[in-house]
């Protein structure tokens, strides 16, 4: 272990070593900044890197520690945030041209908690524009590449965060997940990604895509790192009315618990389609074996409304987005088109020039779904189906403690492979979307490599506020399946 390079340490190791003064925050931060400097031109995981600010923060951490004070459990440890979390005085773009020059005068709740824990902010991670996408290709700032194979996408929308963590350009990061945007890139980049229960982490200051589905969560290289980080960002926040006031358990303690007697449900609908690749199926079976070898029981469950999830999602999410994104009109902040002669022209041109194609597509779908005369048939109906999907899970969790499924149907695909066909692109979230519709938590944990050396993730789902069960099961899989934690990419 002594020869493990600094950047490959886990988040918890790095935190301990700073705390125990084995390394200064400046050395640690400097090491990661030079790693970013050499690798990010290839990967493009960051929209904004903050070398001066990060070094200043690190110096401040070292100074405080010399006087005997530490800020929190992440004192002096460099991390990154998806560029969807508002950071006071630091450009926050959401991957969009319309916010290309936006500097928020406030921190998101997640930003505040990460900083309060003592972390050093290295920069802001690339993402699909307004988190709409599964490949990070819709970013106005150019795509991120998968550190395992630079010709492939890292997944999305939190592709920048997953790639940065996989390439060891930060010890961990926080992403957001509306229909799989944490779990799917985590799976494709071979890292751990957690979508917590809706209401577990405050959405305050997290730029909204689909308010009833959005949830922030950690992306890290180990289950323990992810569990610890979730513990630090979760909890009640009165600024978010949908945030639930319930105690935050010790997630880290759950990672080591035995899985003996744990009932692992296999939702048959998730294994039936022909979209599931043979390699992914085989890898998930290995994850299942890891669990059963340690004493978990297997039950087959049914989620009968699964086939309606994708269309339900593609009505609800765009409908909410069409309203959430209406505020970007060029009047108060962000991009404003020049040369317009009147108000309507200014607003139309600002939005036409500021938004990318996928965002405009979803705004139009959502506007249509909410229109007078169509509301009942589309948005209203989708909400009813959503209730049925939620009921499916409630029934499944009577028989099972945790559900095991693939995270994504295939390993990472090539850049440009699906950009011409939105529907095919949407199918890459087919296993992750129902979880958001039901509001339950999910995790993606690495469970193998494809024949061509691409990571594959297994998804675990549990009942509302049972994140501990996810960490217990994911921890058991991680212990058995050996894993090269950092992508084989050299600067």
């Amino acid at each position, binding site marked *: 272990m002594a020869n493990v390079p600094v950047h490959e340490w886990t988040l918890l190791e790095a935190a301990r070593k700073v705390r125990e003064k084995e390394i200064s925050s400046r050395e640690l931060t400097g090491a990661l900044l030079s790693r970013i400097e050499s690798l990010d031109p290839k990967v493009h995981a960051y929209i904004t890197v903050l070398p001066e600010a990060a070094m200043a923060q690190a110096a401040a951490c070292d100074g405080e520690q010399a006087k005997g004070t530490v800020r929190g459990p992440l004192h002096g440890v460099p991390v990154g945030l998806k560029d969807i979390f508002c950071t006071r005085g630091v450009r926050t773009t959401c991957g969009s041209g319309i916010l290309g020059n936006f500097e928020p005068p406030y921190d998101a709740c997640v930003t505040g908690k990460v900083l309060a824990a003592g972390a050093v902010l290295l920069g802001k991670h690339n993402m699909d524009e307004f988190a709409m996408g599964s490949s990070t290709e819709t970013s106005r700032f150019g795509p991120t590449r998968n550190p395992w194979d630079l010709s492939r996408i890292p997944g999305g929308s939190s592709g920048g965060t997953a790639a940065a963590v996989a390439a060891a350009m930060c010890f961990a990061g926080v992403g957001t997940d509306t229909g799989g945007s944490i779990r799917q890139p985590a799976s494709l980049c071979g890292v751990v990604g957690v979508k917590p229960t809706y209401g577990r982490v405050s959405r305050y200051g997290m730029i909204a895509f689909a308010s*009833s589905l959005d949830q922030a969560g950690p992306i890290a290289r180990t289950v323990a790192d992810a569990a610890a980080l979730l513990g630090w960002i979760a909890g009640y926040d009165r600024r978010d*009315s949908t945030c639930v006031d319930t105690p935050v358990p010790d997630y880290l303690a759950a990672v080591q618990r035995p899985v003996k007697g744990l009932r692992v449900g296999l939702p048959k609908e998730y294994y039936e389609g022909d979209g599931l690749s043979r390699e992914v199926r085989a890898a998930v079976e290995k994850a299942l074996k890891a669990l059963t070898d340690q004493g978990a029981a297997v039950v087959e469950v049914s989620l009968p409304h699964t086939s309606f999830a994708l269309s339900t999602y593609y009505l609800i999410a765009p*409908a909410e987005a069409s*309203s959430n994104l209406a*505020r970007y009109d060029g*009047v108060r902040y962000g991009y404003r088109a020049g040369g317009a002669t009147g108000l309507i022209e200014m607003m139309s041109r600002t939005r036409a020039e500021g938004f990318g194609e996928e965002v405009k597509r979803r705004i139009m779908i959502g*506007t249509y779904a909410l229109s007078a005369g169509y509301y009942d048939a589309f948005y209203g109906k989708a909400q009813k189906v959503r209730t049925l999907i939620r009921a499916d899970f409630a029934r499944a969790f009577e028989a099972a403690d945790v559900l095991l499924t693939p995270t994504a149907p295939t390993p990472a695909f090539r850049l440009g492979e699906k950009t011409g066909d939105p529907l095919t692109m949407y199918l890459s979230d087919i296993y992750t979307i129902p979880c958001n519709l039901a509001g339950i938590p999910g995790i993606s944990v690495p469970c193998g490599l494809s024949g061509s050396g691409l990571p594959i993730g297994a998804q675990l789902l549990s009942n509302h506020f049972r994140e501990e069960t996810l960490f217990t099961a994911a921890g058991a899989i991680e212990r058995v399946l050996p894993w090269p934690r950092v992508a084989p990419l050299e600067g």
Partner: protein
Amino acid sequence: MAFEAVIGLEVHAQLSTRSKIFCACSAAFGASPNENTCPVCTGMPGVLPVLNRRAVEYTIRTAIATSSTVQRRSVFARKNYFYPDLPKAYQISQYELPIALGGHIDIETGNGPKRIGITRIHMEEDAGKLVHEGEFAGAQASLADLNRCSVPLMEIVSEPDMRTPEEGGAYLRRLHDILVYLGVCDGNMEEGSFRCDANVSVRPAGQESFGTKAELKNMNSFRNVEKALEYEIRRQIERIEDGGKVVQETRLWDANAGVTVAMRRKEEAHDYRYFPDPDLLPLIVDESWVEELRKTIPELPAEKIARLERQYGIPRYDAGILAADRALADFFEASAAIYGGNPKTTANECVHWKDAVFSGALSPETIAHAVEDRERGTISATASKKLVELVLSTGKPFRTLRDEQGLTQVSDASALDVIVEKILAASPKEVESYRGGKVGLLSFFVGQVMRESRGKANPKVVQEVLKRKLG
């Protein structure tokens, strides 16, 4: 053909909470532009609304005071449209599931009391305002002032139960008085704290179904609402009588020209794409909360009018004038408690001096003393008025001023005897004429006595003494 008008009113009342409905900014009127704003009410990315509990309580109290049923579950929706004074590009407003349904208030009409139904009460946020080029010095372009954004509003929608502009005016005044009594709205129409839109249609008398309605906007006083309704009813009737048809549209009242002007047709109406706001949970109001708030409801105008009439024996009209303002009615009752000899006079005095009552310059004691001294004949009506004015200008107590100014009148008959005797002795001819039947001369004698007493004699007592001496 005889026509009948059908009128329904929608009132937007600004709740007088200290902070806005979804953020902690001050909701006060009159701050400099954009002073009362924050990331939440200016619609910055990622921020979220949090409902103001006090605003909910004010609305529930209004529901109770209008006999409406508070709904256990109500939902905030988004009303989507683009406008520079609306930073989120949607207004948060209750839509399908409002906080209260099915109430009523009673009004007085020329034909006696009438009950006006209330369809619903819902909560929403206000928008900002735009200032256009030329409206103030140095304006180069249209500017937005977002101070009003997210100020809490309550919309109260009536049933189409009113038939005349007077009924409309009576409903509005009564509703206004109720809200001000409750302390949930300051009622200031000029500043827009109490705004009214009207739906009006006409139909042949006796017809059951409604005619096509027009919606009237931009009326900023009770009188303007009545005038706009009068104009619009006449316009619609004339239109039908000329063989035309009323079209469904929104019309603006132009107070200067005294006309309503078409603004937009039904076909041009926006599609607001309402849907439940996912950032806010459904509002759950349990019965115990409503009962708790029920205890805070004060005596309301209708009850107060009836009680003042009964308890003080004053005319209903006077009681109505007093009860139109809770502070005035309270002042009256405080005065009547100090001196209860003549409540009618006390009521008149309160109304006469109401500006001073509202400004706090007058104490109930002053009015009580003024009425009592007049009743006892200690001072004249003229002296009373003069003394109250002196109280207002000097701040000294009424009775101190009365004694200092020597404005006490002589009401003691025996003291007046001497003067009367003197006058009669000096005017033998007039005494003879009076006794010969010219009783009109009495006022001549009164005048002489008053002059002799330098105005201090009580004319009523002088008359009595004169009649006795001359009789």
